[in-house]
């Protein structure tokens, strides 16, 4: 069994070859995946056209269930977008270099899940042709959006986050796109020439690149945290029991990182299997991802317990009643399923054997995300079904229109991701090289001392060349 994060003896050319190979000649599995995605997407498009023409009625939305799966799934996708930032920005800053082979697709996941999430408010609002009214554009009538509304903050936060994460993804890809450019022919050559922005890999470019990348990483971390805090304020800023919860911002961020990490595990396994990235997406990296997921799952569980206990020991009778109804009422099966998938199931990741068992991990990671999706649903719907006014107590089951659109969003995400992995290297070649380079240094300290020596050191210097370089 492999114990190192990555083998130090992989040749540079081998890395290029392996990664570039993943971008050519799609096999039958790829086309099947594309077909499934398109199939799901077409159902969603059909449902949306129907809903657009008829109104929100066929979705089974009603009074008092004004929000349902659309908003729940919106939060789910926003949440999934956080792990890419975690891996690429936070782990970049704390210099955890095991992230390097897996951060590229995580970051793509960030961008694409935001692109999916951004569709849901549009699908969900009653008059989607007027969606742009939430943006503060100059109009001769001097009408502005309501800046007190969390939905307007949402619009700002999501567009900012989408722009920056797409930029971050693109900037991080430039050296890799240059490698693609050097190896491509035909239309791909033209595309990569355009995208690599004249990257030659000289010192100045690398220096500017590092600086920009670090700056973007620092910019993105507070942004990612604020985005989901703002999404949580859609609920926390309201007056409703079960929504008006002070711990919601950290709770949402923890839930976001959690579902994102679970999704990273899923995609990790798929890419590793289908693209034969065993040499790069190694099991020790998987184990580390599992540990990260487990840790975040525990944070999420803790915040759940805080929410329950603060309501239980508080004096808000309505919120207490709602909490009891979540455990015992009409939505209790889903609530218990959420608790099981979200808090109990991650304990399987505490076992060494399961952490190294790919099929088991695949199932677990999918179930964790089912749990996290249920969590979002259980935030939105029980509050609407049981709030202050007893006359408005109601139980509602979403109709096929909602389910089709929710499933279709997975198709849309899958389609974007599938196109992505064939156009852009899904493993960061230059960072894997960097990682291997550093690992070699760790193996041979003397080379490191030579490589990191500056001109100025030589004058004050002491000795003969390092033993590692004598022959060179």
């Amino acid at each position, binding site marked *: 069994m492999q114990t190192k994060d990555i083998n130090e003896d992989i040749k540079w050319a081998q890395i290029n070859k392996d990664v570039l190979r993943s971008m050519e000649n799609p096999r039958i599995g790829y086309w099947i995946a594309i077909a499934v995605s398109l199939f799901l997407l077409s159902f969603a498009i059909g449902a949306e056209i129907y809903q657009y023409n008829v109104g929100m009625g066929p979705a089974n939305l009603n009074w*008092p269930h004004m929000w349902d799966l659309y908003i729940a799934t919106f939060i789910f996708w926003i949440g999934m977008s956080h792990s890419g930032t975690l891996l690429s920005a936070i782990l970049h800053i704390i210099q955890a270099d095991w992230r390097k082979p897996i951060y590229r697709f995580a970051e793509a996941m960030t961008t694409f899940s935001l692109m999916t999430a951004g569709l849901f408010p549009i699908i969900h609002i009653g008059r989607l042709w007027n969606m742009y009214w939430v943006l503060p554009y100059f109009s001769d009538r001097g009408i502005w959006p309501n800046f007190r509304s969390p939905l307007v903050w949402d619009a700002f936060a999501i567009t900012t986050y989408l722009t920056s994460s797409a930029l971050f993804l693109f900037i991080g890809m430039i050296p890799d796109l240059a490698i693609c450019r050097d190896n491509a022919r035909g239309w791909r050559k033209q595309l990569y020439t355009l995208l690599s922005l004249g990257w030659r890999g000289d010192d100045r470019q690398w220096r500017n690149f590092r600086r920009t990348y670090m700056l973007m990483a620092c910019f993105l971390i507070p942004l990612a945290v604020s985005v989901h805090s703002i999404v949580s304020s859609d609920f926390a800023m309201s007056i409703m029991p079960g929504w008006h919860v002070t711990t919601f911002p950290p709770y949402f961020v923890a839930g976001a990182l959690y579902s994102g990490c679970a999704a990273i595990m899923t995609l990790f396994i798929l890419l590793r299997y289908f693209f034969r990235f065993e040499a790069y997406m190694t099991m020790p990296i998987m184990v580390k991802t599992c540990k990260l997921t487990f840790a975040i799952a525990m944070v999420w569980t803790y915040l759940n317990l805080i929410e329950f206990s603060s309501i239980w020991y508080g004096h808000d009778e309505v919120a207490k009643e709602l909490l009891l109804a979540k455990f015992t009422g009409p939505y209790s099966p889903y609530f218990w399923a959420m608790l099981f998938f979200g808090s109990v199931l991650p304990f399987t990741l505490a076992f060494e054997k399961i952490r190294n068992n790919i099929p088991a991990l695949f199932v677990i990671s999918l179930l964790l995300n089912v749990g996290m999706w249920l969590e979002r649903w259980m935030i939105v719907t029980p509050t609407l079904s049981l709030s202050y006014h007893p006359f408005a107590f109601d139980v509602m089951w979403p109709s096929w229109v909602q389910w089709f659109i929710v499933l279709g969003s997975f198709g849309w995400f899958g389609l974007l991701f599938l196109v992505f992995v064939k156009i852009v290297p899904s493993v960061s070649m230059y960072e894997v090289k960097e990682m291997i380079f550093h690992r070699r240094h760790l193996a041979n300290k003397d080379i490191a001392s030579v490589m990191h020596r500056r001109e100025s050191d030589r004058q004050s210097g002491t000795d003969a060349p390092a033993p590692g370089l004598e022959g060179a």
Partner: protein
Amino acid sequence: MSLKNIFEDWSRYRRGREEGGFQDYEFMWGMAIDLNKCIGCNACSIACYAENNLAVVGKERFSKGQAMHWLRLERYWDEPDLGEERVSNYQHLGASFVPMLCQQCNAATCEPVCPVAATYHTPDGLNAQVYNRCIGSRYCSNNCPYRLRYFNFYSYYEDSWPSPLHMQLNPDLSVRDKGVMEKCTFCVQRIRTGKDKAAREGRQVEDGDIQTACAQTCPTGAITFGDLLNIYNPASGNADSKTAQMWRKHQVELGKTKQNKQTPDLRGYRIFESLNTDPCIMFLERVREV
């Protein structure tokens, strides 16, 4: 504009408005609903349908919870489970009724959450709903503790008034299309007409000039509609209204989260006062004979 200017302007704006909220009211329309007088006949609801072009959605959509009744009459029975005594006391007396219409809260929870400011507070003390501006995010309805906002889930106008029924529509206000939130407006078209009429005649609006459809229709006179602006200072400004007199009589005060209940005669309360929404509708408790 320099940063300094912005801060100075802001502080000038804040001066005198430290408590926040809208201050320069012209009127503050309110109601007093005496539940002792309510017999649950639903006439107010019907009047509202006729006056405000509310869509009749049909049995199926009604049971799905997609009805558009701005004024709904809620029936409550005392629950048999709540103990022996209460069952024997009240069950045979039948249901209690609460007509629920938009409470026109002064600190409305629906207003700050609308992303496009389609719902806002007017100088009349109303929660206005601007249909043309509404994009249908439905956040206002979710944040209304009374659940008194209704959403157009379909284009009801297409099948609610088959010809020649469309001739009965009230021309004073619009028929709403799908995707728009709507709610009780205190018959804002009547308020406008009443104010215009008073202005034409060169006088102040007097109590009784303006009636909402529900108050006009109620056979027992349970609903009283009027101005609350000078409720504690009847001599100044607007004319004293019957509604304001009732509020004073039952010592119900605006801006409070709990009303004076020292004697059984003080029957006034406002629904969910403790949430500090400061509604403008006072209900008078029903007195039940044991």
